[in-house]
């Protein structure tokens, strides 16, 4: 991935198709029209949903281009930051709009993301790679680091609140919520530090063993 850091600005512009620039603008126009009251019928809600999806995909595409330019270990950080921003913005706006019904939205979203990554994406990678190369090898150190961080954060944030007794039910008290926020940030920070500065070598794909899946 480091190979295209040398490309010319013109080639870089070619990575940005027209729709990635048009989609957010069109979405903004549609949003403006909707806020002036052209909304609330089924068709216009569908149009708004398509515009939202289009601008999200455009934003992710922009982040992908930037990540490509930045290179291997830091590029994943750019992508993670972009996706987190989009996700938090969507969750918070839905929670503000939805009231008490939408309170469980955050944990459902995070659970769905974890399940898609762990089972869907890794499963698909292993299945397709297995069909193509019969047996795949990959960097064990990188996998172990990512899995350790993911497992700790997922269980602490999603399973643990059911068993705390200060506030019964699937809730954390404000103090506990702060603790969990700090703890997940610490785990994620340690992971990012290992990925970029501390043990950069185990996360960057080594050239001879190319059929890696992670």
């Amino acid at each position: 991935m480091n190979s295209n850091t040398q490309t010319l600005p013109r080639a870089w512009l070619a990575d940005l198709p027209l729709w990635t620039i048009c989609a957010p603008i069109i979405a903004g126009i549609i949003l403006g029209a909707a806020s002036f009251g052209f909304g609330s019928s089924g068709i216009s809600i569908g149009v708004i949903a398509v515009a939202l999806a289009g601008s999200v995909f455009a934003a992710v595409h922009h982040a992908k281009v930037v990540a490509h330019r930045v290179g291997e270990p830091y590029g994943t950080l750019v992508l993670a930051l972009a996706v987190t921003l989009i996700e938090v913005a969507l969750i918070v706006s839905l929670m503000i709009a939805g009231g008490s019904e939408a309170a469980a939205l955050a944990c459902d979203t995070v659970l769905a993301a974890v399940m898609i990554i762990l089972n869907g994406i890794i499963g698909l990678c292993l299945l397709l790679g297995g069909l193509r190369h019969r047996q795949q090898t990959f960097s064990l150190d990188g996998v172990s680091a990512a899995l350790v961080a993911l497992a700790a954060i997922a269980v602490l944030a999603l399973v643990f609140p059911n068993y705390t007794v200060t506030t019964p039910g699937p809730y954390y008290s404000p103090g506990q919520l702060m603790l969990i926020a700090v703890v997940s940030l610490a785990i994620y920070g340690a992971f990012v530090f290992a990925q970029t500065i501390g043990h950069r070598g185990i996360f960057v794909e080594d050239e001879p063993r190319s059929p890696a899946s992670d």
Partner: protein
Amino acid sequence: MTIPAVSVLSLYMHIGLVLGIDTKSTVLLVLSLFITAIALRTGRTIVLHGIVLLVIFVVYLFTTVIP
């Protein structure tokens, strides 16, 4: 990184935040963490591991629609 952001925002804006998942999802989450850890343990994987992980994913999707 979503968890800290959402937690701090919910504290700041006084929105109730449900973080716990139900028992069914807990079992599936722990199962998939366990299976992933075993499947990726050796550094070499074959088609079987992928099929098992995808099956768990399908079960998760199915039980989300029909709990």
